[in-house]
């Protein structure tokens, strides 16, 4: 509608303040990317320890170590993105429970506590039973920690592109993609063929489902809202088109193709390339999706 209106009125903004620009930039991309790995490795660790306990016992310590590292990367970038980072404690002492940021901060804090408990159980006490018991709680808490960013994006009323049902699915899929990719890189050649096959299938399916969601947004999003159509112009011939497709190819298409080839040829080497491509591409895909709605003028 707006295009027809502009053609009819030739309306041109001749004076307005500068757009605020990209307020949530690469720091928030790092936040989402690191969180996907930090929670995803827990999902995959839980799955492998349940399904293949005999062959995957050695992953207990690396899984919790990787999760702790990446969750702290996520927390680090969360805090440094605050313009008043030394007031971070306000979230705990002046909490506003309708905010996804508040809920996310509490959940992430609990998640870190459980991770530290798991690390203590496996590294200090060498107690696998305690580790597995804590893992049951950790994997449950990993779900809201993964999803709260989708809630935050949904609460961003100004950004029509970020819709809750889609974003929540994308967050979970990103965690599965990143978790399986990291697990493939972690396992080396220690995993049996059955474990490798499971990881390949999770990586391939997460990539396929994520790609379908992005393409569905690309094609059908503009039919729902004019604002979405305007935003998607930035990746349909606009300034973020190349970056968007680099992300899609690296995060989803290359892993899908390599997973198929690796399953056919039983090549773990191809699977590792798929994992690296997925991790790099995920960062790019997340970044483009984060940035483009911020380019649209609100006034």
């Amino acid at each position, binding site marked *: 509608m707006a295009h027809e209106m502009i053609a009819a009125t030739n309306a041109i903004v001749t004076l307005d303040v500068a757009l605020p620009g990209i*307020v949530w930039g690469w720091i928030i991309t790092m936040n989402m990317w690191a969180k996907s790995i930090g929670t995803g490795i827990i999902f995959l660790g839980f799955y492998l320890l349940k399904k293949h306990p005999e062959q995957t016992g050695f992953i207990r310590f690396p899984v919790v170590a990787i999760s702790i590292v990446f969750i702290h990367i996520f927390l680090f970038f969360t805090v440094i993105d605050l313009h008043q980072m030394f007031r971070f404690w306000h979230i705990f002492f002046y909490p506003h429970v309708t905010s996804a940021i508040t809920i996310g901060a509490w959940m992430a804090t609990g998640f870190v506590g459980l991770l530290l408990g798991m690390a203590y159980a496996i590294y200090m006490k060498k107690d696998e039973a305690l580790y597995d018991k804590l893992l049951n709680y950790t994997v449950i808490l990993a779900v809201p920690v993964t999803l709260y960013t989708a809630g935050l994006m949904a609460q961003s009323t100004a950004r029509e592109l970020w819709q809750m049902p889609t974003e929540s699915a994308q967050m979970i899929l990103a965690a599965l993609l990143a978790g399986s990719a990291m697990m493939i890189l972690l396992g080396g050649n220690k995993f049996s063929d059955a474990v490798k096959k499971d990881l390949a299938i999770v990586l391939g399916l997460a990539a396929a489902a994520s790609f379908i969601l992005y393409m569905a947004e690309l094609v059908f999003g503009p039919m729902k809202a004019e604002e979405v159509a305007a935003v998607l112009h930035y990746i349909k011939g606009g300034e973020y088109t190349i970056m968007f497709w680099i992300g899609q190819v690296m995060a989803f298409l290359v892993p899908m193709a390599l997973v198929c080839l690796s399953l056919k040829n039983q090549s773990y080497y191809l699977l590792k390339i798929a994992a690296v491509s997925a991790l790099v591409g995920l960062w790019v895909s997340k970044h483009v999706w984060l940035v483009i709605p911020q380019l649209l003028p609100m006034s």
Partner: protein
Amino acid sequence: MQLGFLVDLRLCMGCKGCEIACKVENEVPLSTWRLRVKYVDVGTFPETKRTFTPLRCNHCANAPCERICPVSALHYLENGIVNIDKERCIGCAGCVMACPYGAIYIDPQTQTADKCTYCAHRIASSMMPSCVVACPVEANIFGDLDDPMSSISKYIQSHQGDVQVRKVEKGTDPHHYYVGGGNVTLNPLASIREEGHNLYNNITHLPVGGHH
């Protein structure tokens, strides 16, 4: 009490007196605005006209900024004003992402969110907001929407067929009304922004929002 604003765009002549009054009253730093007037040129020469639209916080009853704020820095006052506590704000910019009107910015001096508060400090002293006082044509009308005898309520009643709010589809229930508005003035997608068409080109902007 529910305070609200109404701007009669048929009266506004784009003098920016309200902008300056707001800047002075609230010590708004360079490169940021709590209130600004947008100019949109319509038509093709020689059949052209210029429209003026003052834009400020809409003080929504269902404010996305208040909902997303993790520390209640953005909060409601009893008179309906969405106020901000800059001492409590952590500068997460969630409110900047949430506001569909682009009314919130990160103050480059305090590194906290800031926006129009309908001059809450003046209201507390029974004074009108500074932009209302400064307007030479009384295009800004301010008052209690719950009081049927207030000037704003009477204005709305007498212009019922021509009263609009911005972005109703967002469900924010804004308490900022416009009379004489249209798509060109109220819908940001209904006008284009092209290099070379600004009244002032090649402007050097101060960094907005600090470290990004």
